[in-house]
């Protein structure tokens, strides 16, 4: 394995009108590793992927994939990458096999080789049975698998997956994760953008957290979780009418900024090293306020907590508003 990173960006910038979608991003991705770009909708992850795959020209800075510059060397770069985007970019009126065959031809493989690779991908992705069916008859999960398969037909050195599981049901998601993990065992470098923290946690060797076009943290999942510092106190309020009161108690503990989700009734507070006193105080306060809670516990932080701690997005929102909006905006509409 060479020393040269598979992907490098320096001061990468892209603006749409006044919106600075990517605002000085520096990345270095080691060959054969899985790198996650984690950020909420609109953070700039998709824009970064689009620049690296030559779909967008950067306004400033530079970026290279396998030593090819995204602007000057775009043709060569395209020959060494594969891309699967947020949509299953496959032709519905062609069969699965025809779709893969077409992509193979467009990678400029000869007829026999394109056919062989299509066969290989169909086999590997469990689509052999459905190979000669029109894609219109495929389920959502099958389409994504075909889409992912299409991005591998060219045997790319670097694979880009832009929110690969957005819109999939949980079972298809797990299936796709398994496939992706198997893929990278073969040594492919993978850059993955996602707004799902569990996805980054499960798949990525290193993660860059992006917010408003800038990298705000980078490291392994464990390193990032360490940034929260210590443990998280969590409980659930079954009676939604008392949810606001429970949140007020969480705030009054004056520990970390609480994360409140009215939909699930869950409240979580980073408590640092003061876990045991926090749990006692919380029980006492909640009890004296007459609020019944369930599943009260101390746990290790998840990337969800990391994100909150790093961005502080919801911490700044006034309590009432946070309660009213629930988690809106964190997992809302997709970035365009």
């Amino acid at each position, binding site marked *: 394995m060479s020393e040269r990173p598979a992907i490098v960006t320096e001061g990468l910038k892209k603006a*749409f009108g006044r919106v600075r979608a990517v605002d000085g991003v520096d990345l270095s991705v080691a060959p054969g590793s899985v790198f996650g770009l984690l950020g909420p909708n609109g953070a700039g992850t998709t824009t970064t992927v689009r620049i690296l795959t030559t*779909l967008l020209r950067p306004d400033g800075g530079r970026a290279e994939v396998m030593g090819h510059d995204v602007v000057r060397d775009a043709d*060569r770069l*395209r020959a060494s990458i594969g891309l699967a985007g947020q949509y299953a970019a496959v032709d519905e*009126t062609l069969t699965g096999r025809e779709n893969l065959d077409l992509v193979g*031809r*467009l*990678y*400029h493989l000869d007829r026999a080789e394109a056919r062989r690779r299509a066969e290989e991908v169909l086999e590997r992705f469990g689509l052999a049975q459905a190979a000669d069916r029109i894609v219109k008859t495929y389920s959502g999960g099958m389409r994504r698998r075909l889409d992912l398969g299409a991005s591998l037909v060219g045997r790319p050195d670097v694979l880009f997956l832009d929110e690969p599981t957005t819109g999939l049901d949980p079972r298809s998601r797990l299936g796709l994760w398994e496939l992706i993990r198997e893929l990278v065992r073969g040594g492919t470098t993978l850059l993955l953008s996602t707004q799902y923290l569990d996805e980054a946690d499960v798949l990525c060797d290193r993660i860059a957290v992006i917010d408003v076009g800038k990298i705000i943290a980078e490291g392994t999942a464990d390193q990032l979780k360490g940034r929260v510092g210590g443990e998280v106190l969590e409980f659930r309020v079954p009676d939604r009418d008392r949810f606001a009161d429970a949140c007020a108690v969480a705030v009054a503990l004056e520990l970390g900024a609480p994360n409140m989700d009215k939909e699930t009734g869950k409240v979580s507070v980073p408590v640092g090293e003061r876990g045991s006193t926090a749990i006692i105080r919380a029980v006492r306060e909640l009890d004296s306020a007459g609020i019944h809670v369930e599943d009260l516990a101390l746990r290790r932080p998840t990337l969800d907590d990391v994100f909150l701690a790093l961005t502080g997005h919801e911490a700044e929102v006034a309590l009432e508003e946070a309660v009213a909006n629930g988690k809106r905006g964190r997992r809302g509409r997709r970035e365009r």
Partner: protein
Amino acid sequence: MSVRTATATVSTRREGLRWVVADAMALTRRNLIRYVRIPTLLVFSTIQPVMFVLLFRYVFGGAIQVPGVNYVDFLMPGIFVQTAAFGSTQTGIGLAEDLSKGLIDRFRSLPMSRSAVLAGRTISDSVRNLFVVLLMLGVGYLVGFRFHAGIVPAVTGVLLAVGFGTAFSWISAWIGLSIRDVESTQAAGFLWIFPFTFASSAFVPVESMPGWLQAFANNQPVTATVNALRALTLGGPTAGHVLEAMAWIGGILLVFVPLSVRRYRSIA
């Protein structure tokens, strides 16, 4: 002009051109398979022109006087060109569809020729246009239309109609890539096609229109192409008309091929 690095070939102009053709053919095939898979698509794109033939032949035809010519012989060249013009709106719609489904993103991330997506689309739409124009020719024969000038002018006429459709396909491509939304492109298609086809010599003699409209009708590509087709089917002097039509076709291509390719390259 892209060549796979693995093959370690230096990209030369000739090789680049070879790939443009190969890629365009691959995509043409892909676009045409659609009509084999969904035959109703083709059925519906032929019903409309048939309706127009029947409408003008039997409903309006009796009221339209064209001195010295059977109305059906006057009408059918107009129908051929109208069919090609309406068919060309599909180019923009097809591209807008590919855009919205993320297929264009995939194509743009592949080491394929940059102009092949547009070339493949306009070629497949021209093939479909050829098919529909030939079908209209059959329908025309059933309702009394005849070629009066022989086989070579007849073939030239069909090719001219299809060539005209190709030119309009590139306008449609530019519109589809600019608007990007399928439904809006569909609506816009009729907006720009309608004045060209109806304020032309396709269905009525231009002399019957008010003066200000004649000024437009006499100086636009549909009239030029219809007049050339009429000369080729009815007989009489043809060279001037055919050259004028070809000049329009060439001019449109000269403007809209580069415009569309540029638009395609800069899609965000």
